[in-house]
């Protein structure tokens, strides 16, 4: 480690971390344009992520986000908290529910039609290894809050990142 990184004011102090401590939260939105951008950047061109008819033909209710887009965007909260994206040693998730990204009824294709709420808390601290495990909660928020029984839905399970802090 360089001097700069150890003296970085944004690096959390592992000695003061406790299990259950919150690292923050943020909301991320997805639009159809975001799915196209992820397809291009990742090389995952599965048409269920951009073609409505194809998605329905394989039994989905419509176009869904790449699971890897959800997983990949959720971890930035951890990178920001750790102060260094290179400190993320291990990152895993299970995909429990698809994230539907319907075509916007009006506006451009970059109009968001899905909103995720991401929050993280400390799941474990290993002082000897100098690592902390962050457990992420990733929920899809209802698009129309006024509809009945609309509540956030967990879309990732066991979403955990192990971060090197010391």
């Amino acid at each position, binding site marked *: 480690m360089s001097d700069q990184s150890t003296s970085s004011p944004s690096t959390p102090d592992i000695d003061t971390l406790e299990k259950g401590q919150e690292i923050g939260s943020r909301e991320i939105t997805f639009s159809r344009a975001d799915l196209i951008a992820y397809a*291009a*950047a*990742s090389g995952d061109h599965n048409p269920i992520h951009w073609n409505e008819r194809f998605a329905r033909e394989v039994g989905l209710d419509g176009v869904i986000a790449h699971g890897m887009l959800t997983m990949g965007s959720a971890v930035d909260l951890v990178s920001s908290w750790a102060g260094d994206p290179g400190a993320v040693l291990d990152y895993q998730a299970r995909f429990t529910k698809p994230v539907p990204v319907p075509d916007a009824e009006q506006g451009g294709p970059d109009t968001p039609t899905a909103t995720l709420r991401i929050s993280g808390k400390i799941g474990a601290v290993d002082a000897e290894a100098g690592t902390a495990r962050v457990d992420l909660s990733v929920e899809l928020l209802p698009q129309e809050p006024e509809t009945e029984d609309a509540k956030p839905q967990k879309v990732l399970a066991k979403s955990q990142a192990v971060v090197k802090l010391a």
Partner: protein
Amino acid sequence: MSVNTAREGHQYPPAEPYQVSREAVREFAVAVKAEHRAHYEVDAAELLGHRDLVAPPSFAVVVAQRAEAAAIEDPELGVDFSRVVHADERFSHHSPILAGDTLHAQVTVDRIRVMGAGAMVTTKVEITTPEGDLRSTVTSSLLVRADEENEEAAA
């Protein structure tokens, strides 16, 4: 067509080496809405002690899926990609992937678990440097749903 459990443990030839460009790191970071400056600015990455731009933690999927294709497309393994649901994913990094890296990737069918008429296929991709040092391990599980005929037979 159904998944052939005898393929468990099979290792496929490595994919063509992948060269990580700054442009690819930035494009991927934008796509996953990553905000950290070390993905975009070399100065910010260097300040943290990295040689070049730091790829987001899930960038390894780009490298891994090129190797995974060998398994997915293997007729002997028998994965019907139109019936696949991504079940889980894990990245274990020995050191972060940086712009300028040349990465080799090789896939092994780690585990096949029969589930009714379908199967859970877990692949493991080892990403290594040209010197042969392990950089990252990417583990991915695909749930292969049975086709309707098999589902009926299993019911």
